[in-house]
């Protein structure tokens, strides 16, 4: 009897060995018993389909949570002091509060004003010059820039891999403990894609659940009449194009904008049209934050546009604005502030 059992056991082990030798795909970790919990991306009413391809990076509760932790973790930077959130602060719609240029590693300045992060699922290109063509590769730029987070990808992956809590979270989000560049940036994307700002007063008015005050509605009319809307197109309040708004070249930064990417002189001094959503939270203004006050921005269009070879036809003849009109425009801009967005606990530091 005992012998039979031994034979049985040997046969069984042999079978396992042979079966194991044949199989070519099951040599990794066993699949998780339960996968991460899917999250549906909500498209605000009346908005177009997102540009981001969610099928290649499906949102999950665990993926978003991992991305949120990464976004707020200084570990992604060389000296631990510069998480993504150091320049992208929720109270400023994920721009930097009160800074023309943000600070990076070793007391260095960045060379441009940190952009607000919102509605990224609808963006095809990133940075003021549009040099980055996909959200999933965007974080590599600030992580590796010597004047920002100043780290190498290899080092970030090493630090993450030696952290047991991260290994667990990567497993929860992606099925195994493997930590790779792709998984890290996809998790960051998942979190950043949830930064949807579509709950301001303007949105509510459009949905018929709120009404503008008189100054707000006058401001909205002026906004359309003065053709601000031609570049700051609804519903994103940007048409995602690159334009020269007649700002003089800053002599230290010498930032040629879009031309840096295309090397086409026709793109000299062109920068991406920023969204005006949460504009009253994201001062200072322009690509290098040179204008601190929204009224000064309006005054720029009213009187200070410098015409050069690439200055946009829409501002070439300036945009005449009376003080009254400026006031109404600013009243309208306040309706673009999304309090729910900046108070959303799901976007805050975990």
């Amino acid at each position, binding site marked *: 009897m005992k*012998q039979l059992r031994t*034979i049985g056991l*040997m*046969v069984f082990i*042999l*079978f396992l060995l*042979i*079966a194991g*030798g*044949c199989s*070519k795909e099951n040599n990794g970790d066993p699949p998780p018993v339960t996968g991460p919990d899917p999250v549906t991306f909500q498209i605000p009413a009346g908005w177009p389909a997102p540009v981001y*391809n969610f099928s*290649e*990076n499906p949102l999950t509760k665990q993926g978003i949570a991992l991305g949120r932790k990464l976004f707020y973790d200084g570990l992604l930077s060389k000296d631990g002091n510069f998480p993504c959130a150091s320049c992208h602060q929720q109270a400023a719609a994920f721009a930097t509060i009160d800074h023309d240029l943000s600070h990076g590693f070793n007391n260095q300045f960045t060379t441009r004003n940190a952009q607000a992060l919102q509605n990224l699922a609808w963006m095809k290109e990133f*940075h003021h010059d549009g*040099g*980055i*063509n*996909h*959200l*999933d*590769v965007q974080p*590599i*730029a600030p992580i*590796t*820039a010597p004047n920002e987070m100043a780290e*190498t*990808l*290899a080092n970030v*992956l090493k630090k993450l891999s030696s952290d047991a809590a991260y290994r667990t979270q990567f497993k929860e989000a992606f099925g195994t403990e493997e930590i*790779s*560049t*792709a998984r890290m*940036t*996809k998790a960051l994307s998942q979190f950043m894609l949830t930064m949807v700002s579509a709950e301001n007063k303007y949105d509510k008015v459009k949905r018929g659940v709120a009404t503008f005050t008189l100054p707000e509605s006058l401001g909205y009319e002026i906004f359309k009449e003065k053709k601000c809307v031609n570049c700051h197109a609804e519903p994103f309040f940007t048409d995602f194009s690159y334009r020269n708004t007649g700002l003089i070249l800053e002599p230290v930064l010498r930032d040629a904008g879009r031309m*840096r*990417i295309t*090397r086409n002189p026709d793109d000299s001094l062109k920068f991406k049209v920023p969204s005006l959503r949460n504009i009253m939270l994201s001062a200072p203004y322009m690509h290098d934050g040179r204008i601190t006050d929204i009224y000064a921005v309006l005054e720029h269009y009213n009187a200070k546009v410098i015409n050069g070879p690439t200055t946009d036809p829409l501002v070439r003849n300036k945009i005449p604005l009376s003080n009254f009109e400026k006031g109404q425009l600013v009243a309208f801009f306040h309706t673009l502030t999304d309090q729910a967005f900046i108070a959303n606990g799901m976007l805050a530091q975990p």
Partner: protein
Amino acid sequence: MKKNRGWILVAVFITGLIACAKEESAEGDFVPVTFEIIHKTGGVPLQLNNPGVNPHGEPLTITKFAYYISNVKFLNSNGQPVTLTPEYYLVNEADPSSRQLVMDVPAGKYRAVEFLLGVDSTRNVSGIQSGALDPANGMFWSWNTGYIFAKLEGKSAVSPAPLSNVTFHIGGFKTGESALQNILLNFPVTLDVKNSSDSHIFLSAETNAWFNAVHDVKIADSAFCMTPGVLAQHIAENYARMFSVDSVSNQ
């Protein structure tokens, strides 16, 4: 009893073998073919960090030499291309194992191989990639998205750049600035890929080609190239001619 045990073991073994054999034939007649690449400077095997000269007589110590190979196709005896499963290879002089490229090729007779030196535009615009294309491999431009197709770095006394650096980071996939190079290499004898064979293709890649194969690129004039554009395209046209097939083995 003892006899029985032996039979059972034999039976199990045979079952296992049949299972294995079946799986292989189900995958079709794909046979591994190995590319062995040797990097050379002036016909002599390249040694990183060893002083040398380029074809213009300029001193050059190469410290890094790496490039991507992708979109490999084999041309059969009728000249018809046979496309392989998409795979991306990062060949790096500093990592000898990366100079051995193993590809699964359908059994058949081939007269040439064709490949892309670089990374096709699709992979440049499709977000984050893994494996050889992981940006952590350092062949990626973060601020102006795109892969660096090929890198040659070194030191030269005639370089006007800081630290006497020579830095050629070649890339560019967009229309008008593409540095993608399709390379066709004819085999000296027919490559006969059979189930029983262990085919090898021995290639040489000559660093000197970077400086003068088509366009003269002198370190004294152009010690660095780190953006897409005309210089990158010229260097790419040069290095497209760096490969030669030394021999093909069908054993």
